[in-house]
């Protein structure tokens, strides 16, 4: 019971310890993936958003025992400094990040939305990011960033994150190889 096995950013990991430790703390403390941030600690603000089997969830209200056998993705899997994901590039160019605490969560919630083929009009993006708060209140820039990323992803049909193989867009992907740095 004290061992929990799951994949993090495509890599199989074993966690040994308290089964009720928050996934957030396991990622940050045990696996040193400090891209995931703690905001409110009660599932309201989305700063700790990670993807669980491809879907955005709040890592602060998930006990690690609940992710046995499942796949977790953090912002570390999205891109690297030398090979930014379209969302990261767009956030930089459009000023989508201010203090930066909300950014990893915003990026992952947006990545999940775009991967699923979500609409890119302002209302749809705001709805998809409704669980992510930005206390710098930079929402307009964030929405524009996501729209720009969608544009960047569209013409050349590049894929939209590590495991997007099933989406029609990524079927045209040039295949950028494994980007997992965990």
């Amino acid at each position, binding site marked *: *019971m004290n061992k929990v096995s799951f994949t993090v950013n495509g890599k199989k990991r074993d966690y040994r310890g308290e089964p*009720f430790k928050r996934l957030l703390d396991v990622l940050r403390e045990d696996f040193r993936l400090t891209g995931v941030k703690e905001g409110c600690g009660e599932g309201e603000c*989305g700063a700790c958003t990670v993807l669980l089997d491809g879907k*955005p969830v*709040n890592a*602060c*209200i998930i006990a690690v025992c609940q992710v046995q056998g499942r796949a977790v993705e953090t912002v570390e899997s999205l891109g690297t400094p030398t090979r930014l994901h379209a969302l990261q590039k767009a956030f930089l160019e459009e000023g989508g990040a201010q203090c930066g605490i909300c950014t990893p969560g915003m990026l992952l919630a947006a990545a999940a939305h775009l991967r699923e083929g979500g609409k890119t009009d302002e209302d749809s993006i705001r709805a998809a990011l*409704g669980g992510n708060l930005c206390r710098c209140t930079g929402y307009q820039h964030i929405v524009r960033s996501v729209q720009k990323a969608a544009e960047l992803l569209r013409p050349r049909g590049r894929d939209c994150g590590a495991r997007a193989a099933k989406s029609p867009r990524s079927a045209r992907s040039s295949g950028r190889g494994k980007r997992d740095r965990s």
Partner: protein
Amino acid sequence: MRVLRPMNAEEALTLYAEHPSALPMAGGTDLMVAFNGGRLNGREVLDLSALKEWTDIEFLPDRARIGALCTHARIESHPGVLKRLPLLAQACASVGAIQIRNRGTLGGNLANASPAGDSFPALAVYEAQVVAVSAQGGRTIPIRELFAGVKKTTLQPGELIAGVEVPLFKREPQRAVFRKVGSRRAQTISKAVAAGLLWVRAGKVEELRFALGSVAPTVRRAAKIEEFLRGRALSESVVEQSCAMLEEEISPIDDVRSTRAYRLGVCRGILRALLSSGQKG
């Protein structure tokens, strides 16, 4: 904190019978907040997340079966639910934000029995039956008998919610409404939440079902208004009389989220919109 982690439903029921004070946990979206706040110290938790059972949505000719461990996100996007039980789809889509809806489950929502549970008014007007199971067997509980008060259910020790059964209509209602009113669209806890279904025949009300949440200790069906309207034509004065009767049906309070007066006004507005001709569902 000790975690019991059954691998299937049978094991879950056996463990729960042996540890009746354990707290069942599905998606954990409420329970983990209490845990993080230090309010569950020393408690045992029965983690149901490994169960493969109770995760299906199934449509039979006369009813739908929705497993307790179905997430809100799954329910809101299920084609059958969208088509046949649209108020439930809308209710599930109104819960929290996507991060919460990807974790929170219908069974967990019911077992929590919050006065503000967003799925309850829809389940109330659909007259859902809650399927409760224990190591001894199972029973169905009409949704109106499930809630005993704020955060209290009539579930017996050792009983878990396996799912809900929702009867399907032979004749679809002419009008339907779901409304959640809060301070913002995402993540809000309702000031008021309502679901209504209206059948009209030859200009007269055949049946109204109207349920309200966040305005009483438990979800409330507006039984007096439903009875009053049966067989009546929806004239302006009948609509206004119905709206005036709402005060007898619910007991909204002033609290951190809203006021009694505002809640009453909002509920009247939703009912009026449902009853007024020209309004489509």
